[in-house]
């Protein structure tokens, strides 16, 4: 018996509505654990790197982990792994809550979907048996409406993951949503939409066993208790939106398509200000004791909002009105759009208009109406939205005028809310990231906010720190544990090795987990190599190189220094 696992995954061909239970070797599970690690391994084994991500044969993996279904706080998470239609490289995005638990109880450690349904359909997985039902009545429906309708019809014990209109229209950064949370980046919603699947509904009762249940329960209680301490205070008390004023203070808040690092209206979008002008509640995922989700009231309801959405739809587009930015975030949720890529692509287009490269005079920085209109056009692929739905890199190639120099992306993935010139370890993290510019797969910003480096003049010493954060992220995404928990651990590798031992019975050591992390990062690199990666991709757009920030002459990163950092990264990785 393999504790913590079913020892198999469910391979579902939606062309025919057939399911196959495929055994998973225990050695493979130990080497890749679950989540991102398992997902990348399954994709490599399926030869997915060479496929068109929107083709019927391209696999879409929902990967669980040995911790899913346990009482460990923040463990109810799943990874959605595929080749990205936005970047053409590996894409692993994570989402949370009940779908992870119910999905694993269907009897597999992962669900792999291939094929294309004959019509827009709902894929129903009931205790490991599958069926397809027509989803015509849900065409055009928001993620939340789809989920509610399906639960009302199928039963409250089902959990649903769905795409919005953006996924149906194959917007390259469409999301997959569950319970208001999104597997956001990289366009997995388009991959599911290309399979003609509007939603996946799962229900199951097949539990796994743990090797040392009493020890696991004791550890869970201790971890929960520690999760209430200072290490998670930021997430509980203010949420990730705390970053807004902090980054603005350090000139690191990307503004108007990264033309500046400070935004005059930042205070309007801060949680400190918003909580005085509107209602605010908190929610948490299933099993989570942190409760990081801060939900703000707006005219027609409420919206859960994170820092990345506030920056991408706020300062990046020059919009400082909180109602507008919250509405924009809400609309992205409804349509199933990644807010970072949406804001990044719109901001890029705004600057193209400013420079006279794009003839859409209504699309100007600071216009809330323009922001909301652009989001609608993207979600439906109407008019300009059809171009913007392709992402900033493809849009830049279509627009020409050397606009690629200002397209805020790496490998095609739009850059999150960290100004690279002001946070240069993060700049390295963005440049070398397997799925593109990514603050979740690289925690290098932690290094910039420490005494380990001079954030505006990083040297090669920063590289090993960047690698450590990347490895740690890969491990957390495979165990799977929420990264907001990471400050709680005194010795992360030793404690999580013990955690894995209590679940699986394996005699896992801290050193083994370090090797596993490196293996997972290398597997992502292997996927990208097979997909056509070249060294030229590990860089930043021209805008960020050799041009300091206007508000901070010290915040300048030369191409030569970035190249040195990237080369040192590759050397230390042994690639």
């Amino acid at each position, binding site marked *: 018996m393999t504790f913590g696992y079913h020892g198999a995954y469910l391979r579902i061909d939606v062309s025919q509505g057939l399911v196959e239970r495929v055994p998973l070797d225990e050695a493979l599970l130990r080497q890749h654990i679950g989540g991102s690690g398992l997902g990348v391994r399954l994709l490599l084994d399926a030869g997915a790197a060479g496929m068109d991500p929107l083709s019927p044969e391209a696999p879409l993996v929902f990967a669980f982990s040995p911790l899913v279904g346990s009482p460990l706080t923040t463990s109810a998470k799943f990874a959605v792994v595929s080749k990205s239609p936005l970047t053409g490289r590996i894409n692993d995005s994570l989402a949370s809550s009940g779908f992870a638990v119910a999905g694993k109880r269907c009897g597999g450690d992962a669900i792999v979907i291939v094929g294309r349904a004959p019509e827009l359909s709902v894929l129903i997985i009931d205790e490991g048996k599958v069926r397809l039902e027509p989803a015509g009545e849900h065409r055009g429906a928001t993620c939340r409406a789809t989920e509610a309708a399906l639960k009302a019809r199928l039963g409250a014990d089902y959990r649903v993951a769905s795409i919005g209109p953006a996924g149906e229209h194959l917007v390259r950064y469409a999301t997959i949503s569950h319970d208001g949370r999104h597997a956001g980046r990289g366009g997995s919603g388009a991959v599911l939409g290309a399979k003609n699947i509007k939603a996946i509904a799962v229900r199951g009762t097949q539990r796994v066993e743990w090797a040392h249940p009493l020890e696991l329960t004791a550890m869970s209680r201790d971890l929960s208790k520690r999760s209430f301490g*200072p290490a998670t*205070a930021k997430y509980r008390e203010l949420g990730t939106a705390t970053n807004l004023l*902090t980054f603005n203070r350090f000139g690191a808040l990307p503004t108007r398509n990264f033309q500046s690092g400070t935004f005059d209206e930042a205070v309007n979008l801060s949680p400190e200000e918003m909580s005085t002008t509107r209602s605010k509640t908190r929610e948490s995922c299933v099993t989570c004791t942190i409760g990081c989700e801060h939900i703000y009231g707006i005219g027609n309801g409420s919206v859960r909002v994170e820092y990345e959405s506030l920056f991408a739809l706020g300062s990046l587009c020059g919009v400082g009105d909180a109602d507008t930015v919250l509405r924009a975030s809400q609309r992205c949720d409804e349509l199933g759009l990644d807010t970072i890529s949406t804001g990044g692509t719109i901001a890029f287009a705004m600057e193209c208009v400013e420079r006279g490269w794009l003839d859409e005079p209504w699309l100007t920085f600071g216009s809330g109406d323009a922001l909301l209109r652009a989001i609608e056009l993207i979600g439906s692929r109407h008019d300009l939205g059809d171009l913007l739905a392709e992402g900033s890199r493809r849009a830049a190639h279509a627009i020409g005028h050397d606009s690629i120099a200002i397209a805020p992306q790496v490998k095609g993935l739009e850059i999150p809310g960290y100004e690279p010139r002001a946070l240069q370890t993060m700049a390295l993290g963005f440049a070398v990231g397997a799925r593109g510019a990514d603050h979740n797969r690289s925690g290098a910003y932690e290094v910039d906010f420490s*005494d380990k480096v001079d954030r505006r003049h990083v040297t090669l010493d920063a590289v090993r720190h960047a690698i450590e954060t990347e490895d740690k992220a890969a491990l957390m995404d495979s165990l799977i544990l929420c990264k907001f928990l990471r400050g709680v651990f005194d010795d992360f590798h030793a404690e999580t090795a013990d955690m894995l031992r209590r679940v699986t019975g394996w005699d896992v050591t801290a050193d083994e987990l370090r090797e596993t992390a490196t293996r997972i990062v290398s597997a992502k690199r292997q996927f990208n190599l097979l997909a056509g990666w070249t060294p030229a991709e590990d860089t930043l757009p021209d805008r960020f190189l050799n041009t300091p920030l206007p508000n901070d002459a010290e915040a300048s990163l030369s191409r030569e220094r970035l190249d040195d950092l990237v080369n040192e990264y590759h050397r230390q990785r042994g690639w």
Partner: protein
Amino acid sequence: MHVEFLGVPRERAGVAELEVPAETLGQLLTTLAARIPSLRELIVMDRLHPAFVANLNGDQFVSDPSTPLAADDSVLILSADAGG
């Protein structure tokens, strides 16, 4: 010298900034803990809890309690975890 709070430290302190006499970082932190009880969870002896950091003049991040401070220095206290 000038102390500025951001994020959770600001919420706990109840003020955005204040003036505090101190010659070292450690002295500053012990003074803050004594003066503002709600900050005590964030300050351990003469150091910040690992979840928080101090920045000197918007330039370098500092953690050594013996870090000297000048009268016209400005110390920012914020969450270490910039994730989100």
